[in-house]
């Protein structure tokens, strides 16, 4: 404004000062110039005002926006610090998204609201998923625990039980039916497969065992009959073939040991069974005769004890196996010594070799084998089957077998035969006297004494004792009334068990073979029957008179009638007629 006034004043001054001629022009110019200035000033003023107004409005907006942004940041801070954690905790507790949103202060901002909504729904899903996988995990763990338990039960209890029952001979179906399976058992199928397979192999094993035992029993029967035949031939043939027959006999006996060993392992039986007590010397010789190196075995047996028939074969086999072992594990030139001692506990048989001392491990192994622990065929070693058989026999008869270092440098085996395996001593004494009834009565009195009492006999002179009670008992076996006290029922029955016509009477417990043997004896002895004797007495008394001739006759026919025998049978018929 002041500009305008100043410019108007300046223009008036100019006009006033201007010469008259120029006055109009000056006046026009001054007016025009002033108008221009006025317009410019007005325009500027207008512009300025407008600018100021917009600056004001901008300021206000800035303030508003600042306030808004502060509010928003406060809201987001609230959201971050309060709402979201609250929401999370609510959702975690299992509330639904909507429900949770109702319980928290939602931000007013739509974007934030949206974020919250998206977040809460996503969070809800996550929580649900986590819950479901959690429960799934728990279920899986339970199942796993159950399966574990089942597996444990199956391995610890069920399978061993089933295997035992299978071994006892039950069929797979029986065994499987006894077990209640849980409905959803994973193990059922494999266990069934296993049990069936095991049952099949058990059956196969048993069948193989039975088949081999059966086959072996045929070999055994053949061996025994071969031995009997060989014995016949040895009687019949003379010295030329005698050695060969003995060799064959020995080979057959070894074969018998081998087959018996296998048969016993296979659950079969021995090839022989004795029906009478066998004296210890015969047991030892029978055992030694079955091994290859029998000539290296030295027997030291002075006892007259006998092993009962039922155990005789088992004892013989056991001792044969131990002798075989001792002979095989000692140098081929050294002898194996066998001693028999009688103790109150029973008979002690000691088998000693002078070979190398057994190593500790081998000794332990042998101890284990003879203790009868190796009953399972599967655990048998390929060799040394004999010791396993020894173990089986020892367990069966209650024999104790112990290894110990031998005083001869090698190994010793101590076998204790318990007393219940021994035959009653009374049994053997009458048997012996009746075994050689050909001797005249007076002789048999003398003969009986050293047999019944060898210990006191010794190298005594041949004079008959005055009247020893033992010899009297042995001498009068024909009067059962007198000897009833001393004789066992078996031996007295043996004497009286015949009808007057000589037919055998089979007492209970006696085998036909023995009865047959008696009858044969009786018939041989009774050729010239003595008148006035009771039938029971006849054989023994009759033997006195005729048995010498009978025995001679028997000896002559047995050697003479089979042609040349090489034992000087040619001149045999001559001497009686010549004299």
């Amino acid at each position: 404004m002041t500009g305008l006034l100043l410019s108007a004043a300046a223009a008036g001054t100019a006009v006033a000062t201007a010469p008259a001629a120029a006055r109009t022009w000056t006046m026009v110019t001054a007016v025009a110039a002033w108008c221009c200035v006025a317009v410019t000033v007005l325009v500027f003023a207008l512009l300025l005002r407008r600018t100021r107004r917009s600056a004001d409005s901008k300021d206000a907006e800035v303030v508003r926006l600042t306030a808004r942004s502060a509010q928003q940041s406060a809201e987001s801070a609230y959201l971050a610090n309060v709402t979201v954690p609250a929401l999370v905790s609510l959702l975690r507790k299992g509330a639904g998204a909507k429900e949770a949103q109702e319980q928290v202060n939602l931000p007013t901002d739509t974007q934030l609201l949206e974020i919250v909504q998206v977040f809460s729904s996503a969070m809800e899903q996550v929580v649900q998923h986590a819950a479901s996988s959690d429960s799934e995990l728990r279920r899986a763990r339970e199942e796993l625990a159950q399966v574990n338990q089942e597996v444990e039960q199956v391995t610890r209890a069920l399978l061993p039980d089933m295997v035992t029952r299978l071994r006892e001979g039950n069929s797979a179906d029986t065994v499987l039916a006894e077990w209640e399976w849980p409905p959803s058992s994973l193990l059922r199928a494999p266990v069934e497969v296993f049990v069936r397979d095991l049952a099949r192999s058990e059956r196969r094993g048993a069948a193989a065992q039975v088949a081999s035992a059966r086959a072996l029993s045929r070999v055994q029967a053949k061996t025994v009959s071969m031995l009997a035949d060989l014995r016949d031939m040895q009687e019949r043939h003379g010295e030329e073939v005698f050695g060969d027959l003995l060799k064959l006999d020995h080979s057959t006996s070894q074969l018998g040991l081998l087959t018996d060993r296998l048969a016993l392992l296979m659950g079969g039986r021995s090839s022989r069974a004795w029906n009478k007590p066998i004296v210890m010397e015969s047991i030892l010789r029978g055992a030694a005769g079955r091994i290859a190196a029998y000539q290296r075995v030295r027997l030291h047996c002075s006892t007259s004890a006998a092993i009962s028939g039922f155990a005789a074969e088992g004892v013989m086999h056991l001792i044969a196996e131990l002798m075989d072992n001792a002979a095989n594990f000692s140098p081929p030139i050294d002898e194996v010594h066998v001693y028999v001692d009688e103790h109150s506990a029973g008979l002690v048989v000691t088998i000693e070799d002078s070979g190398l001392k057994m190593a500790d491990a081998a000794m332990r192994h042998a101890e284990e084998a003879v203790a009868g622990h190796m009953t399972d065929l599967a655990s048998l070693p390929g060799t040394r089957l004999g010791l396993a058989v020894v173990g089986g026999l020892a367990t069966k008869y209650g024999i104790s077998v112990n290894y110990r270092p031998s005083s001869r440098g090698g190994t010793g085996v101590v076998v204790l035969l318990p007393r219940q395996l021994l035959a009653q001593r009374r049994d053997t004494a009458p048997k012996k006297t009746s075994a050689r009834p050909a001797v005249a009565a007076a002789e048999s009195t003398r003969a009986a004494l050293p047999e019944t009492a060898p210990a006191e006999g010794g190298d005594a002179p041949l004079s008959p004792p005055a009247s020893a009670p033992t010899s009297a008992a042995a001498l009068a076996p024909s009067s059962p009334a007198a000897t009833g006290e001393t004789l066992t029922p078996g031996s007295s029955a043996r004497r009286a068990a015949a009808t007057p016509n000589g037919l055998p009477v089979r007492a209970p417990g006696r085998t036909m073979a023995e009865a047959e043997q008696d009858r044969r004896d009786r018939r041989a002895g009774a050729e010239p029957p003595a008148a006035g004797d009771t039938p029971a007495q006849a054989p023994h008394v009759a033997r006195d008179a005729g048995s010498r001739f009978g025995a001679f006759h028997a000896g002559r026919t047995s050697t003479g009638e089979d042609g040349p025998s090489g034992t000087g049978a040619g001149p045999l018929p001559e001497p009686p007629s010549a004299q």
Partner: protein
Amino acid sequence: MTRRPVDIGDPDRLYTITGGRSRADDAFDLVTLIVSESAPRAGMQSEHARILDLCRHPTALVEIAAEMKLPITVMRILLGDLLAMGRISARHPPPPRPQAALPDSALLLEVLHGLRNL
């Protein structure tokens, strides 16, 4: 299966009795008389003891063999053992008379003729 009573015998085989020997010396023939010189001793082989028992009076070899039910060869081996130990003595039967002690064959022929002419 066989029903033969195969097990009535003894379990010991002959080669265990003879200790594996199959040859006997020729000291004995069938009728050699055996007589024991001592009583059996404890610890003897049972066959030896029985032989000594049986031979208290002179007994022929064949008779002992029949009594003991053993083959002659085995008996000879056992008796050989006993003889070597000096526990028995063997009495051989009287040997046949020497040729010179027999009557002349001409004389016998004459006797034969005489007999035929009777």
